[in-house]
């Protein structure tokens, strides 16, 4: 490798610019991610929220180039600026580039929603953990095993040395997710992509895993891109949040800005429809209609058919509104953002 250049705290770890991901299907091309730009500074936790089909997982998968055909990255840049080493444009790499294999599980790793499908059922936990270590670090098998045991202990698995010889089916869901986290963090990645890491778990176990992720994040200073639909998880884990709807980011800001003073009507609707917040009201506020199919993305602002504030002739024509800042660091893709009352 070329002379490792040290990047100062100034350059963000990850810069995604104008990412477009589409899927070529028999009935036409479907745009799942439409011009998404994201910046993740080093050591920060960023949440990417939205309902199913909004493109949050496809965005995350694109960062590791895990989108499978018929999906493809049509446009955009995914720039990773590692602490040591040259910046990489992941979107520009060839599918078979050696660098891609070194990135995956090395500098950037991923946690998936369902721990059982993320682990191989026919290999022991120890084999899978050591494989990850040996792929990325030039050390011997004995040393790798010691590292694996240390990591399992760190994620709170009792009797780690014995657990190495177990298969995933011999463990509970919470334990499996701990193994997945251990595997993701054992090579000390600079960026961790976590796709709904606690959704498949029971609440008391979810709370344990969230505790663990927070502790490890603080200890290792790993940046996390957390994909979730649960606004409670976002509130407790993230510093920054981006809200997606139909393949576009519609609002972006700090967790307090988004959850306490949401500007976009969609974000407001999502927060208002949480049952806990409207105890005394007999009817739960809900967002009209359903998320349209990606084949029928409405013209103008994609949210306008469901928006209680949409204006005829303004919101339903032209290009979708771009993100613009009404407040410092808080961006909204809504033509009427400035006019609407703040606070839900």
């Amino acid at each position: 490798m070329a002379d490792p250049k040290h990047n100062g705290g100034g350059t963000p770890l990850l810069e995604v610019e104008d990412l477009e991901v589409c899927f070529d299907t028999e009935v036409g091309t479907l745009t799942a991610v439409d011009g998404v730009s994201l910046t993740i500074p080093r050591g920060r936790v960023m949440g990417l929220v939205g309902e199913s089909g909004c493109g949050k997982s496809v965005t995350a998968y694109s960062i590791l180039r895990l989108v499978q055909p018929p999906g493809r990255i049509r446009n955009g840049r995914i720039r990773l600026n590692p602490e040591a080493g040259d910046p990489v444009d992941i979107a520009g790499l060839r599918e078979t580039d050696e660098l891609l294999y070194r990135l995956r599980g090395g500098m950037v790793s991923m946690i998936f929603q369902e721990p059982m499908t993320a682990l191989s059922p026919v290999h022991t936990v120890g084999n899978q953990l050591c494989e990850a270590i040996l792929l990325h670090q030039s050390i011997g098998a004995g040393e790798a095993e010691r590292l694996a045991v240390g990591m399992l202990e760190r994620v709170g698995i009792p009797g780690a040395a014995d657990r190495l010889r177990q298969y995933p089916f011999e463990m509970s869901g919470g334990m499996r997710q701990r193994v997945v986290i251990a595997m993701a963090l054992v090579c000390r990645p600079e960026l961790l992509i976590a796709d709904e890491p606690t959704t498949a778990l029971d609440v008391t176990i979810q709370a344990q895993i969230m505790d663990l992720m927070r502790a490890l994040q603080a200890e290792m200073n790993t940046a996390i891109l957390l994909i979730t639909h649960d606004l409670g998880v976002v509130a407790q884990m993230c510093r920054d949040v981006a809200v997606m709807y139909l393949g576009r980011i519609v609002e972006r800001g700090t967790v307090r800005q988004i959850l306490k003073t949401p500007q976009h009507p969609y974000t407001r609707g999502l927060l208002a429809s949480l049952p806990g917040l409207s105890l005394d009201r007999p009817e739960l506020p809900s967002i009209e209609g359903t998320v349209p199919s990606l084949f029928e993305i409405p013209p103008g602002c994609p949210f306008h058919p469901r928006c209680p504030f949409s204006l005829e002739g303004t919101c339903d024509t032209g290009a979708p509104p771009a993100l613009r800042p009404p407040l410092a660091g808080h961006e909204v893709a809504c033509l009427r953002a400035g006019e609407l009352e703040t606070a839900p």
Partner: protein
Amino acid sequence: MSERKPANKPLLSVRGLCKYFPVHSQGLLRRRTRYVRAVDDVSFDLHSGETLGLVGESGSGKTTTGRVILRAIEPTRGSVLLTRDDTCVEVTTLGRRDLKQLRTQMQMVFQDPFSSLNPRMTVGDIVGEPLVIHRMAKGRALRDQVVTMLERVGLKPHHRTRYPHAFSGGQRQRIGIARALIMNPAFLVADEPVSALDVSVQAQVINLLRRFQRELGLTYLFIAHDLSVVRHISDRVAVMYAGRIVEMAPTAALFERPRHPYTRALLASVPNPDPDVPMAPTIHGDVADPGDLPPGCSFHPRCPYATEACRNEPPALTDSGHGHQVRCLKPLEPRV
């Protein structure tokens, strides 16, 4: 409109309901080695027009409880009394024919709107099937009833001829609700009816269920793991752990003054969407395995307050006044 008459006999009275699944050994003989106590000594009353929320983590027995009450699964023992128009039926001992008759009064809405609808049947056939099975309508009358029902759940008459794949999750759940309600039942078991749905759609389906309850005086057993949804829709809530009800109380009392350590831990584990409300310390350990329960109180290995007595003595469900029942030797004092 129905009015709640708590003085009257409850619509549904469940007593000592148990469902043990045998576990067989490997090998030729397949001897019974032990039992999984999926539902163990569950008792509660449900009055007409009331909603009882049943919460618990996976494997706590909440779904099995719902299914045993409907006799979708045969109970091991216990009693389920259904009282309607002063006639009282013991559900657990009914014969086949009577059971079929009973199904017109007790219906179910399932969690997964994708697997609970037959992909080869049109929506009209799915919603109308109960009427056909029970020979309650045919021909034009059947079609009219189906169309009326579809409109009441917020779908269009022309949806009748489409197949389930053409609908979104929320719309499919509306189809499932239409199928359950077309028999005009008195009692509905809703098993995680909104947990597969997105938040914005979830609110629509909850509102629909509540509207039907107001209009038809329906009685719900609402099974869910999402505590905020349960809090919103239920009059009373029962918390299950390892097959047993560990606490049951009117909704406000349960959420504001939980007395069982498990209930308190469960409530504290829900991440608050307000970033300024920090999370409470978590409880350690995994959910108890109903096939291999610890002696004494099933929760004691995870309980921060467990004493020697908790390890030996299984606690009974006791009433501490105002309909608040707790299964704990040393229930927590309400926090001020």
